[in-house]
């Protein structure tokens, strides 16, 4: 079932938690709500779940307005960040609870629990209580409780944030596969941009209750709509330098920096007085020898991760980072030369933050 937010706003007293949200999730699609803590992403999920009242606007499930329905009438399944397993019930009872509430027959419940447990490799744990489970196991039970019935949508609230890094990568894959095989519309909340980019069909980036950009992961990465998205998505984040455009020289200038701009960007830059130049670390070229037009810098710190090496360096007063092949190494304070890939420069209006063009 598709889900649609139309002009949805949520206020807590004076504070605006979500402002005029318009968002459509296609049937079977997995949309990730991405943003820092307090950006309103969890509030959106809870409003959709029916756990939080909407101040204004409407939420649709298919053609039906569900803005004021109770959670059970909406029939979504939700996985909480803390898993919210019922501590006084065994794993089997936890899994069975949604079915029991729906007055299923005992034998049907037992069969379904068995089936789901097998699918999530919980069969040997069925008799245990939640407190006797590891983090990953609890996570699987929470997931099992969601998929045991056929909900209108899955709502996942940071489901992976409480398990350790290694398990997280594995669960991420499991989740993606599971969602694909079940084909259920899914809304997924996270603050982890890697999770967002790997899982989502589309990502909605939020800040301070306002939707910043909605698009496929690669579009978000490669064509950030504004400074916030540019800075938030990507690790390490995009290099951002504020300055102005010298149209006579066809170049971006900031103190200590001078970067020639391609024609397209120059045209776009005419709309703004001050601009911010952005370039992803992997689009920064770095060398020990100078070439024409390259700029000088000094290495601040060099981090090798194996496959690639992250170099943080200073150019005048600016701190920039570059992603170079893992074979390269630099010393502290080593003098380096760098340049930006002209085809992958981003320009933003420094006043509004909007991407140019």
């Amino acid at each position: 079932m598709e889900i649609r937010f139309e002009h949805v706003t949520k206020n807590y007293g004076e504070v605006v938690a979500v402002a005029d949200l318009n968002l459509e999730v296609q049937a079977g699609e997995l949309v990730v709500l991405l943003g820092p803590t307090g950006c309103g992403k969890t509030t959106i999920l809870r409003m959709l779940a029916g756990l939080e009242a909407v101040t204004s606007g409407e939420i649709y499930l298919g053609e039906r307005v569900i803005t004021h329905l109770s959670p059970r009438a909406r029939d979504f399944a939700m996985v909480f960040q803390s898993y919210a397993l019922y501590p006084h019930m065994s794993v089997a009872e936890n899994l069975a609870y949604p079915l029991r509430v729906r007055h299923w027959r005992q034998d049907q419940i037992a069969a379904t629990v068995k089936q789901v447990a097998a699918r999530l490799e919980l069969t040997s744990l069925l008799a245990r209580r939640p407190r006797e489970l590891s983090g990953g196991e609890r996570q699987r039970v929470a997931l099992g409780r969601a998929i045991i019935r056929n909900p209108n949508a899955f709502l996942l609230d940071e489901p992976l944030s409480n398990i350790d890094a290694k398990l997280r990568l594995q669960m991420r894959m499991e989740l993606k596969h599971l969602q694909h095989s079940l084909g259920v519309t899914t809304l997924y909340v996270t603050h982890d941009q890697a999770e967002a980019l790997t899982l989502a069909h589309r990502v909605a980036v939020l800040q301070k209750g306002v939707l910043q950009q909605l698009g496929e992961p690669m579009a978000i990465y490669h064509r950030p709509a504004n400074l916030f998205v540019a800075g938030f998505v990507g690790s390490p984040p995009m290099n951002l330098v504020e300055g102005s455009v010298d149209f006579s020289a066809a170049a971006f200038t900031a103190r200590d920096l001078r970067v020639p701009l391609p024609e397209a960007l120059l045209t776009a830059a005419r709309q703004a007085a001050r601009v911010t130049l952005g370039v992803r670390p992997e689009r920064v070229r770095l060398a020990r020898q100078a070439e024409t037009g390259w700029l000088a810098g000094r290495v601040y710190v060099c981090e090798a991760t194996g496959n690639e090496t992250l170099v943080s360096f200073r150019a005048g007063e600016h701190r920039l980072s570059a992603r170079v092949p893992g074979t390269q190494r630099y010393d502290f304070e080593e003098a380096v030369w760098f340049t930006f890939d002209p085809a992958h420069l981003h320009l933003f209006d420094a006043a509004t933050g909007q991407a140019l063009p």
Partner: protein
Amino acid sequence: MAETQESVHGELGRADRRLALLLLAPAVLVLFTLSAYPLFYSIRLSLTTPTGAWTPGHFQRIFSDRLFGTALLQTFLYTAGALALELALGLLLALLLNRSLAGRNLFRTLLLLPMLMPPVVAAVIWRLLYNPSFGLINGTLQSLGVDTSGLLWIAGQRTALASVILVDVWQWTPFMFLLLLAGLQSLPAEPYEAAQMDGATRWQVFRDITWPLLRPTVLVAVLLRLLDLLRVFDQIFILTEGGPGFATETASLYIYRNAFRFVNFHYGAALSFVLLAITTVVSLWLIRMLRGRTPAAERS
């Protein structure tokens, strides 16, 4: 099929509000019925003469009523003393029993016993225990070689108040203990595990984790006890009737005398409003003190 019905019942906010109303209404109704009429009745009493004329005279009289002042002061001493002791002892016992321990159930049940004793019996039996000649306390002390000639307990001008406080502590520490234990047992385990990893000492664990987490329970326990202590009546009435020489007279006892023994319900009502006002102020202060610093329990 329930679902179709569900969709009719409308707004979420409204549904919750309706549920809240439904859940609250019976309790509020009972309490309102039982408190509103007596309250208005007492207000009218406190402001009229026996013939029904309006008068502020009863309240004016309170200001020159030195005996009531003394009774109020003693009520505070009684309340503060009993509350402090009961909280300290109750907390200690709750902490002691909040662990796996052979015979824990037995200890817990036995420790509750004083609370079960009818207050009349408790007061009378303590009067007997305190008796300087036949009493078990002095008798035991004497057999241990203690000179008890000056130990008059409830008969001593100086020891009487402390002695009646002790009876209260004996009877009501179990209440604190029971409530705090229930509170302790529902505390989450993670902070403790974390603290153990951090190598905190027992005292640090108590101060930094147990106490802050337990504070809502402490608030409730202290508040409920406070209200009863400020109105203490039965046990003192039987133990000492307020004596010797007014040393254990409390506000409630004094109000009772005026209302029922001197048959001056008007003055009794006026006095009780003074006590009510003080109780309100003290409990508001206590709520602010204990709740104010707690991180808001509301969902983030």
